[in-house]
């Protein structure tokens, strides 16, 4: 409860972060710090935020996405949100976040175009 984990995958200039669990104020704190150290280290051109494993998100998740959007802008990249479930999608649209970041609806679209050059999969488990 109120726990979330993420895994990530680095593919060339792209970083794909797959979130799992509930995103609320409690879990967002740990996700944010874990993700930011990764972003500063890897400095990707694009951050794919895969939300397919997230079945609950409130406005804290909006803050989380908007904050990563700002950080990616700072390091010269952008954010793409992938596969939000209907409930999460409603929260995103309510805030008009779909006008700020691109939303991709199918997994094959997300990282499929560019063939991976290096592929490293790591798992980060957060308390």
């Amino acid at each position, binding site marked *: 409860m109120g726990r979330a984990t993420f895994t990530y995958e680095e593919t060339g200039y792209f970083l794909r972060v797959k979130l799992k669990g509930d995103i*609320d104020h409690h879990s967002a*704190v740990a996700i944010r710090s874990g993700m930011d150290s990764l972003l500063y280290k890897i400095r990707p051109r694009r951050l794919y935020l895969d939300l397919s494993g997230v079945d609950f998100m409130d*406005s804290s998740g909006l803050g989380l996405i*908007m904050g990563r959007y700002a950080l990616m802008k700072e390091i010269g990249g952008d954010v793409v949100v992938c596969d939000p479930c209907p*409930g999460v999608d409603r929260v995103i649209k309510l805030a008009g976040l779909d006008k700020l970041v691109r939303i991709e609806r199918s997994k094959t679209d997300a990282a499929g175009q560019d063939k991976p050059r290096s592929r490293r999969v790591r798992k980060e488990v957060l308390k």
Partner: protein
Amino acid sequence: MKSNKFNAKVVNKMQLKLPSLSVNEGMARAAVAAFVSQLDPTATELADIKCAVSEAVTNCIVHGYRDSVGYVRMTVKLCEGRIVRIEIADKGCGIADVKQARQPLFTTDAAGERSGMGFTVMESFTDGVRVSSKLGKGTTVTMIKVLADLDLT
């Protein structure tokens, strides 16, 4: 009656009192969802309620008890006409200007990566929100969700 949804007759009731620890946000959502489930809400209705509750409880924790730990009190009433009435209260700092606070994107905590969308979520995902607040005394948010009639065929 729908016009009287804030005062509908109470059939069942649950009360919960939790310290303002962020770990309790998930607990509050889950408890309300479990209690409301006896009315067989749709998945969407339940998701709406969970999100609205999460917003109100988080506000108590993040804003109301910004510099302290206090109790968040939650009362859920199931009323006649499939009306769910949820009251979430803190005895924290209170809101100086409620009308301003309810505006979309208004936040006093931009540094904490808040989007200022909490009240907007509550308003969009429920059928009525009332906020009463007094500086230095605390805040009570009352939300109404009217569940669609059960299809008994």
